[in-house]
């Protein structure tokens, strides 16, 4: 419909400034930090590849454990989740090239450093954390104080009505075009709000709860998360959730115009995808 009302607009490119310099710098530095944090985190996890719920470790009943068992003269990777057992040879528990199998929870390609080296994994983890946390705090303040949170990220009440259609359109890889692409849609807003204001603070606080000195400084951390081992499990789950966000985020970037999206996060300039008659929905 709008294509008929604005016939000229479809042919000329509309370029908008989508991301400020600070946002772009923050984005790429945070990508670097999160990759290092995730991979060094898996290295640290490998030192004791089990998760528990509560104040301490009930070694007989972990919520999750990744180990290796000898079956018919061969090591098999066994992952246990509650009462479930899975053979995960090749990925979890036992991995590496055939004939030179290594018994380790997460495989060498997923950890930083690659070989088993807890002391070095910790150094990478804490160094990246010292970059990630101040950047996160600065960015959240920038969003809140600069008004960007309200203008760009908080959903308007009217938006919720279209949640269903938006979801179906996203699953069919049909994304808002033209004027509708000028602002984040509801799904983007919800995803970014969850990551920035829920997952990121949660991953930091559950990480701090694992520090015995921080537990002495802020004993409430233990009460909020139900104990140090619960906090460790939540920390792991946050990392899984952030990884899931990463996968979806990158897929959406790839599916909705990789060059345009990448350019907008590098130079700040974003070309509004033109409205297309072929994509025009006659029922609307």
């Amino acid at each position, binding site marked *: 419909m709008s294509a008929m009302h604005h016939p000229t607009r*479809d042919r000329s490119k509309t370029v908008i400034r989508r991301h400020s310099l600070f946002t772009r710098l923050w984005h790429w530095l945070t990508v670097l930090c999160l990759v*290092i944090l995730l*991979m060094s985190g898996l290295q*640290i*996890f490998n*030192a*004791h590849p*089990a998760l*528990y719920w509560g*104040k*301490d*470790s009930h*070694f007989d009943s972990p919520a999750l454990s990744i180990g290796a068992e000898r079956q018919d003269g061969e090591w098999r990777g066994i992952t246990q989740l509650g009462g479930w057992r899975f053979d995960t040879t090749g990925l979890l528990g036992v991995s590496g090239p055939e004939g030179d199998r290594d018994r380790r929870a997460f495989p060498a*390609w997923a950890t*930083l*450093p*690659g*070989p088993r*080296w*807890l*002391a*070095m994994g*910790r*150094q*990478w983890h*804490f*160094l990246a954390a*010292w970059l990630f946390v101040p950047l996160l705090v600065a960015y959240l303040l920038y969003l809140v104080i600069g008004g960007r949170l309200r203008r760009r990220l908080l959903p308007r009440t009217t938006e919720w009505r279209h949640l269903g259609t938006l979801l179906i359109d996203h699953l069919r890889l049909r994304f808002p075009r033209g004027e509708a692409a000028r602002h984040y849609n509801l799904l983007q807003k919800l995803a970014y709000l969850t990551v920035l204001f829920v997952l990121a603070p949660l991953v930091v606080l559950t990480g701090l709860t*694992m*520090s*015995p*000195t*921080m*537990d*002495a*400084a*802020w*004993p409430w951390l*233990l009460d909020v998360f139900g104990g*140090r*081992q619960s906090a*460790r499990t939540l920390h792991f789950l946050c990392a899984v959730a952030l990884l899931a966000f990463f996968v979806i985020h990158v897929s959406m970037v*790839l599916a909705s*115009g*990789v*060059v345009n999206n990448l350019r907008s996060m590098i130079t700040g300039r974003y070309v509004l995808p*033109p409205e*297309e*008659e*072929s994509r025009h929905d006659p029922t609307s």
Partner: protein
Amino acid sequence: MTRPPDERRRRFLAGSLLATGSLLLGGCDRLSRSGTLQPLFDASEALTQRAHRLLASREALAREYTPADIAPTFRPNGTTFPRERAYMRLAAGHFRAWRLEVDGLVERPQAFSLEALRALPSRTQITRHDCVEGWSCIGQWTGVVLGDLLARVGVKDEARFVVFHCADRFPGGDRYYESLDMREAYHPQTLLAYALNGAPLPIANGAPLRLRAERQLGYKMAKYLMRLELVDSFAHIGGGRGGFWEDRGYRWWAGI
């Protein structure tokens, strides 16, 4: 109007991303081995220690738990049975001949028998032990508050660290040792513990005496204690980094 198929461009991008990724990973491993980033790692440790000192006051206590929280067995780690002949002789004699030497920068160097330590005022606390590997275990410890013992021998002003010398050699050949600075040493929960869960400290957990430093990770809490040495620097001891694991790449500040 229809977008040009940028399949090739996409594949090129994905390929370069993969290549960059594996290059970065290889680079990170090389960086880990070469020590290029060590100054950055050192700075991050110093920052952590400073932040902890800022947030956790001198007196801030580690959480203490209830008897119901005590784990059925306290998981031993590291050395669980020292094979050194001198230690085995002491153990065979129920540690009656064992003495804790306290020397270095002190006014009155002294040796304490187990009986003498047990006769001193004691503290009992149920606390959580956090291993650097990630697990935790709760146990009840009874022992002498280290600060009380230090007051008895009179610490000289120059002393900056307490070094804990142990009886055991962990596979690797070197004798285990650790160190605390005076702030952690004088913390009210820092104990020289001789009992675990109301019974004499088992050999697996460090008999006859071990350190409890409740705001630190497990590797700080030296077992099989033989001697406390007060020093102004630990550069001349062991590998010079203040502890057995510190000499093997773990950080001296074990608050995280």
